[in-house]
């Protein structure tokens, strides 16, 4: 364990921690999350530095240019927010930068074409908090993502970071910390929703002086990327949560198990651990309290099942990530046989907020059974894709319509898949459901880790369910029979239905098998794998029936049940489709109506997507 190279003076820490969240130093914050980087946000940040130098601004006012973590509104990136005015510009390119410097920063004018336009009203919105996407959110965990440089520990400290660990070590005994977490009502954010304080207490009460805490950052649900964004944008808050937890439970060693597929998050996390160690928040005798704790980072090697806690521990130990039966629970026998506590990234990140702002504050947000906020990644057929943090108890309709801006292209909302491959689909008639652990469960979905995939009217729900089944079948570790064979059998039945070869009795078979897999599987992966199928069977049964009994895919998606044909009156004989057809199934000559040979056609849809004259139709 490393000796701290410097110990921060606590009174200094306290003095530097300012109560307000918005920096008063004029700052240009540029989103540097993975999403905005792809759009060129680093080039935008560099250009700002150059232009400000050229304009002589650096010399006259204290003005900072900061690459921050993900702001969440990925759809509109690269995002630039000027603070303290909170003017937000969207889709900013390097060539826009000189104009922003000259007109906005120096002359104080707004540049209309860079402002966000509300698609509903057509209004230009100048301030970040007034944008509907942000207005309905309550950003407790993500609040600093757009404000601080994640590679600089001092910025987190300046915003009140590490104040909670100082408070715990200085004034609270470990049982008092656990009591505080219990009173906050925090439930595990990894999916199952087990009360966090209770879990900590179980671990604390185990005998032995070698205990471990683990942060589960093996995020892998299709459609979920909030853990990645938290670690990229504010890794110190996760570390602070872990240090507090370790203190409360008496753990001396912690691990962050993170997906190797997240390079930026790994880089930020490594930097954060090194800085926290140098500042004396990790290592021996933390902040002079006599408490020793250090954190190591373990990279996942590409296996979804490792997000399951017993599989995750097996993977850290260097074994295949296969779950084992519980009990014994990790709190009793965990990593290398020692008492271990595993929490999700969002749970750990909530802890400093609970300590710092008080359990009553945290418990005042949400519903009687679900406290605090939840982060969702809104993806699929929705206008505002991105990360959103909302109070528990908000309705799905608010999430989809007010924050998400509804379904694009004037199409109808068909379903929201919540909770990833363990979750279920919620149909339009239940859009007013409250988002909390129990309400979602009653509809056959789960809170899960926060993936929220929106499907529009053009989505085939049988195909949708097949997707998730293909996912869990692929990722099943193969240890227990119900999951290994059962998911395979469900998948082949679904594939048969999508191919137009469904048989009477298939739906009853899927239901029966699904319920058996749920009750007999070893771990959470298998126990929840049938949910997407069962919930679509519950709400979209007539769509399954159309496939089986009428040989029809109502959404015109399933290749075995559709065919393409040319609408003669629209075809101009331009030959575009003919040249691109991979199977040579299209015949015709220039300026003559083309025809599709159904025998040769493999239904790839290339002609349909290429035709500019709407002359190819799906029947």
């Amino acid at each position, binding site marked *: 364990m490393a000796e701290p190279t410097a110990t921060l003076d606590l009174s200094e820490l306290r003095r530097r921690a300012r109560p307000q969240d918005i920096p008063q130093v004029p700052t240009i914050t540029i989103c540097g999350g993975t999403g905005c980087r792809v759009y060129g946000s680093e080039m935008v940040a560099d250009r700002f530095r150059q232009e400000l130098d050229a304009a002589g601004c650096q010399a006259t006012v204290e003005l900072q240019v900061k690459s921050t973590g993900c702001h969440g509104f990925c759809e509109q990136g690269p995002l630039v927010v000027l603070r303290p005015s909170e003017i937000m510009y969207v889709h900013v390119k390097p060539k826009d930068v000189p104009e922003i410097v000259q007109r906005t920063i120096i002359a104080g004018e707004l540049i209309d074409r860079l402002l966000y336009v509300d698609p509903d009203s057509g209004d230009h919105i100048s301030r970040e908090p007034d944008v509907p996407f942000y207005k309905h959110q309550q950003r407790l965990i993500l609040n600093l993502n757009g404000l601080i440089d994640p590679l600089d520990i001092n910025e987190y400290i300046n915003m009140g970071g590490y104040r909670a660990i100082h408070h715990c070590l200085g004034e609270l005994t470990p049982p008092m910390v656990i009591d505080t977490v219990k009173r906050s009502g925090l439930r595990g954010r990894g999916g199952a929703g087990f009360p966090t304080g209770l879990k900590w207490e179980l671990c604390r009460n185990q005998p032995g002086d070698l205990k471990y805490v683990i942060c589960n950052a093996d*995020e892998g649900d299709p459609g*979920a*990327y909030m853990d990645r964004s938290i670690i990229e944008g504010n890794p110190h808050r996760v570390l602070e949560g872990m240090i507090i937890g370790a203190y409360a439970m008496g753990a001396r060693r912690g691990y962050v198990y993170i997906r190797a597929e997240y*390079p930026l998050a790994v880089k930020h996390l490594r930097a954060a651990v090194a800085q926290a160690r140098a500042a004396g928040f990790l290592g021996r005798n933390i902040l002079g309290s006599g408490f020793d704790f250090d954190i190591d980072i373990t990279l996942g090697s590409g296996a979804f099942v490792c997000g399951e806690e017993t599989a995750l521990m097996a993977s850290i130990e*260097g074994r295949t*990530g296969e779950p084992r039966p519980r009990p014994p629970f990790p709190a009793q026998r965990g990593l290398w046989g020692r008492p271990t506590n595993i929490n999700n990234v969002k749970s750990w990140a909530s802890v400093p907020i609970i300590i710092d702002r008080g359990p009553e504050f945290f418990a005042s947000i949400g519903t009687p059974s679900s406290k605090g906020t939840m982060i969702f990644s809104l993806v699929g057929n929705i206008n505002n894709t991105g990360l959103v943090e909302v109070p528990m108890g908000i309705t799905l309709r608010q999430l989809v319509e007010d924050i998400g801006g509804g379904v694009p292209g004037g199409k109808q909302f068909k379903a929201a898949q919540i909770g990833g491959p363990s979750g279920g689909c919620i149909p339009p008639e239940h859009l007013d459901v409250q988002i909390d652990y129990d309400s979602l469960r009653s509809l056959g979905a789960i809170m899960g880790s926060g993936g929220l995939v929106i499907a529009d009217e053009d989505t085939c729900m049988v195909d949708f369910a097949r997707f998730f089944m293909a996912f869990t079948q692929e990722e099943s570790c193969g240890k227990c029979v119900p999951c290994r064979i059962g998911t395979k059998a469900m998948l082949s039945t679904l594939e048969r239905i999508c191919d137009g070869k469904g048989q009477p009795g298939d739906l009853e078979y899927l239901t029966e098998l699904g319920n058996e897999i749920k009750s007999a599987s070893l771990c959470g992966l298998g126990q929840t794998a049938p949910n997407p199928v069962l919930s679509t069977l519950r709400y979209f049964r007539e769509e399954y029936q159309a496939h089986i009994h009428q040989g029809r895919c109502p959404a015109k998606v399933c290749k075995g049940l559709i065919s393409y044909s040319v609408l003669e009156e629209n075809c101009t004989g331009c030959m575009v489709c003919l040249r691109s057809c991979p199977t040579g199934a299209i015949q015709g000559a220039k300026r003559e109506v083309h025809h599709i040979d159904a025998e040769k056609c493999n239904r790839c849809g290339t002609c349909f997507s290429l035709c500019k004259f709407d002359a190819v139709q799906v029947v």
Partner: protein
Amino acid sequence: MIAEKYAEEIKGIIARFPNKKSAVLPLMHLAQHEYGYMSQEAMREVAEILDLDPTQVLSLSGFYSLYYEEPVGKYVMEICNDLACALRGADQFVDMACRKLDTTVDATTEDGLFTIKTVMCLGACDRAPMLQCNLKFEENLDEGKFDQLLARLREEAVSEQKSPSIVEKIVAYAK
């Protein structure tokens, strides 16, 4: 022999764990770096260093998807075709990419440059179709952008050889 070539490094990795056997996954990355994939030789060497049976290393190699059991191209393009991406046309994108490179999923192009794989969620659902090429995300792709990417990589591959291969990247980062 990685045991001699990386003696110091191996010692450091083993020291991070309470028991030697737990160091197997990072050592496998090292061996994969040396041999380009998890060859039989690579598995035997790792097993020997850690007093494991080679079949134990083989089972890990088969279980975790970041270990390659066959040689791969210099650039491994892992295209996500999971649900959220499929809703944005990822399957058609995979077909297009294979057509373009005259290859199939999991096969390597004849020039040894490209391997296309399909993967489960990479957490960039809002920017599909997307792929991860040697650990770098390429997002919001279409045919035109894919052409540009191929051109850039082909140029990079012949220019100075300074761009690391996927295996080199993974090992650098798994340390």
